[in-house]
């Protein structure tokens, strides 16, 4: 059976979630580790990261990457949507 392709929103969710897990809340996330754990080619991850930086969802710091409040709100909104869709049986 073929695996379901991740949608763009699923990929954004995974990246934001992994940024948090890798310490982006304190500004210490490593982009290489996040890209590897998100199962994304590094160039594609960079494009997503630049987009997040452009939207002020993520910032670069001396120690790594920092997720901003806007980024956390976005992650929270995607999580809430996924939880809602799961509860009404529309998760895929």
């Amino acid at each position: 059976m073929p695996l379901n392709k991740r949608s763009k929103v699923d990929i954004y969710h995974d990246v934001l979630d992994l940024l948090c897990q890798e310490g982006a809340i304190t500004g210490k996330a490593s982009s290489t580790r996040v890209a590897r754990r998100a199962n994304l080619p590094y160039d594609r991850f960079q494009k997503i990261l630049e987009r997040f930086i452009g939207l002020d969802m993520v910032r670069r710091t001396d120690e790594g990457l920092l997720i901003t409040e806007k980024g956390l709100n976005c992650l929270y909104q995607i999580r809430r949507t996924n939880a809602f869709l799961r509860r009404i049986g529309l998760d895929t």
Partner: protein
Amino acid sequence: MELQPLQVLILALEFSSVALAVALVFLFSKIYKTKRSIFLLGLPLGFFLLMSSSFFLSAHLVDLIFRSVDAFSSSLMWLRVITQTIGFALIVSSYVFAGRYQNKVKQSYLVILAGSTVLMLAAFGLLFAINPTGLSSVYSTNKILAAINLALLSYIIIFLIRKVSLKNRVSDSISGLVAFFSLWIGQFSFLVWGLANGGDAALVGSQIARLVGFAIFLRIYYLASKESSINAIEQTKQS
């Protein structure tokens, strides 16, 4: 003109139904905006039509009680039954396409568009075929459309029962199942009222069941928000 207690109750229930439906339209629009999956478009559109349907019924009742202009009332009721059935059909379309066309954006959009158009034409055709002389035929066709609504809601209920039985976490989809079952009970109760002369209790029951269904959807969203905020707090603590 003095209002009967039953009329007041029915009007209050229908206005509450409009208010809850407005909240659901905003909620499902937000869901669609976040996910950007075209198959979810049926939900905000469907609930928008259900909201319109409740609004038209309220207007119909107000007109019947205060003015009683037959042609205008019939037109409102005609709009009410059509929007309701198409609304349910659009919600069902989201469930039909959920697993099948998830990543085929253009195709699913066309399928939803074509499906809605066909349903709309079929509903119009049905009304005119049964009684082409006037819009008053809506009172007899209303029961047929209620039966169609029951069939549409049954599809979602069967879909959710299958999903619940396949999952280990039964509690996850059960609330969605209860919400749609409430809407089903609402339609069934209306059918009982129409066909078997079930009395005022059946009519009021149908409105209450619909209201409960809408309220459960809002409760599900509240629970989902709570769940995701708990996760967020735990993640912050870990960091």
